[in-house]
């Protein structure tokens, strides 16, 4: 897919850092190539969006083409956490814990309206987190309720593009605001 076909290129440009000598750029390119083509997700699905995530992994859409089919059940070995579904107050500490237990570098995809903003449960709900970006830093947002599997694939490609902007000398910093978010 061509660069122009993607959405939100403006934000991507912000991520891109200039500079670095040739050696580092090459190394970066190699490492980023490896990282972006081997994004192993954590088996983490809370509700309806999880089913579409499963569907994305199945034969019709075949996640595996991107090399992403290696679902790891242990956060130690996974690279991306796809928050597929609603996160409620009781689940939030768990999610945060899982995120914390993952090994760097780690990424987060917020899949579906619930993960982005609480979606259908934004108003009048007493137990839903209004967007996972309140507890963990999110890299890519995929709207939809649920997003169709292609949309998830598209989101993954967006994440790949984002990973490719990283440099080894200046890895993506975890925003300080999240370092010690206290979840009640």
């Amino acid at each position, binding site marked *: 897919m061509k660069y122009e076909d993607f959405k939100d290129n403006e934000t991507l440009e912000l991520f891109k850092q200039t500079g670095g000598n040739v050696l580092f750029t090459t190394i970066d390119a190699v490492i980023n190539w490896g990282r972006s083509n081997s994004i192993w997700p954590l088996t983490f699905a809370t509700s309806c969006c999880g089913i579409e995530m499963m569907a994305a992994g199945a034969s019709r859409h075949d996640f595996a083409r991107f090399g992403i089919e290696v679902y790891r059940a242990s956060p130690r070995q996974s690279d991306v956490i796809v928050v597929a579904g609603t996160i409620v*107050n*009781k689940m939030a500490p768990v999610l945060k814990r899982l995120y914390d237990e993952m090994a760097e570098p780690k990424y987060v995809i917020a899949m579906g309206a619930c993960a982005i903003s609480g979606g259908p449960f*934004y*108003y*009048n*709900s*007493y*137990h*839903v987190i*209004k967007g996972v970006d309140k507890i963990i830093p999110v890299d890519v947002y995929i709207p939809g309720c649920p997003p169709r599997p292609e949309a998830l694939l598209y989101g993954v490609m967006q994440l790949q593009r984002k990973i490719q902007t990283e440099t080894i000398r200046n890895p993506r910093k975890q925003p300080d605001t999240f370092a010690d978010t206290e979840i*009640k």
Partner: protein
Amino acid sequence: MTNEQLKEKLLQVFPGAVISETTQYVTLTVEPDKLHETAAALKGNPELHFDYLFCQSGTDVKEALGVSYFLESTDLRHHLLLKVSTTNRENPVLDTVCDIWETANFNEREIFDMFGITFKNHPDMRRMFLDEEDWVGYPLRKDYVDEVNIIERN
């Protein structure tokens, strides 16, 4: 059994019972202190034999906290709505029926969680969904307010 027959039968078994009828189900209203014995009789009486509690719901209507039990007999195929309510909002206590219908075990925990109705003799009276340690209040009550989490839609 038709609803009419059922009503007669009920009056036979529980003389002086308060019986009404919604569009669907015969409704039997009991006092909290009679609840357990009525329930036991409903299941135990071979001609009523309500062995299947298919829905148990807490209610909060007009001052009274209550519980509705939807009963069905799996062999006689008749239905009953059993209702009980208490006006004590501070410390509502009802008898448990989970020794009669096992499914009440979880349902009563849920009702406790959502309405704060405590069930006497329940083996495991804890919150079902919300955090046991630090959740305050009973969300499904009409007077529940929660400024932190709820965003009201104007």
